[in-house]
């Protein structure tokens, strides 16, 4: 927590304005999002695993009834949104750490943007596809 407070202090004022131009809200926002979504993802993982444990021989009807319940549907969509937010923050962090001018010289910015756009497209596809799977069938 001390680390976050330090970050928050250093992100304040003019630096924060720069970050808005940099299409980042602020590190603290991402920090919160990453942790909220992590809790949702962990809960969903345990929920699905729990279903496996409770159902000794999983056949089609048992499997289908899990995903047909309104509880699972809502939980799944929430998790899907959490996953997209979580993966975006995570992948953004990784790209800004490893696709930089240190490793890729002048091309780093273009390369990073192409990769981030690819991540954005994939996650959007996951979201739409996932809604179709969880709600559409």
């Amino acid at each position: 927590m001390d680390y976050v407070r330090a970050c928050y202090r250093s992100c304040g004022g003019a630096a924060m304005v720069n970050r808005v131009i940099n299409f980042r809200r602020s590190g603290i926002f991402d920090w919160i999002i990453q942790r909220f979504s992590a809790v949702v993802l962990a809960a969903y993982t345990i929920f699905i695993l729990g279903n496996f444990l409770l159902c000794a021989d999983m056949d089609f009807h048992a499997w289908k009834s899990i995903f047909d319940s309104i509880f699972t549907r809502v939980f799944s969509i929430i998790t899907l949104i959490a996953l997209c937010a979580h993966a975006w923050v995570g992948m953004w962090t990784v790209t800004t750490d490893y696709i930089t001018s240190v490793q890729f010289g002048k091309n780093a910015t273009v390369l990073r943007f192409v990769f981030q756009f690819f991540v954005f497209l994939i996650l959007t596809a996951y979201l739409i596809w996932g809604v179709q799977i969880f709600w559409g069938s």
Partner: protein
Amino acid sequence: MKDKRPVNLDITTIKFPLAAIASILHRISGIGLFFGVGILLYFLQISLRSEAEFERVAVLLDGLLMTSLLGLILLAMIYHLIAGIKHLLLDLGIGESKQGAKRGTIIMWIMFVLVTGVAVGLLW
């Protein structure tokens, strides 16, 4: 726009103690899961279509290729989850000392082996 924030270090010059390896694996497993989710969604979609399709997925998942692929995704998921829980505990101020960090990493690895063992035992 001149950015006054410090430039991050050249990672090729940095030594990797156990905690650093644990951290980098958290990232690698995260990147793996980014792609793995697509594979999981694909199998989920087919398995929910009909009884015949469900059986087809079950047979497919018994094959060596799919077993190793799904196994890898499962490993990444278990690792990422446990490393994530450790991360959240650190955020709460638990295990932040140098000694605590070492102990935390060891506990994390033990948990990883345990959970993986249980998962493998249950699934196969």
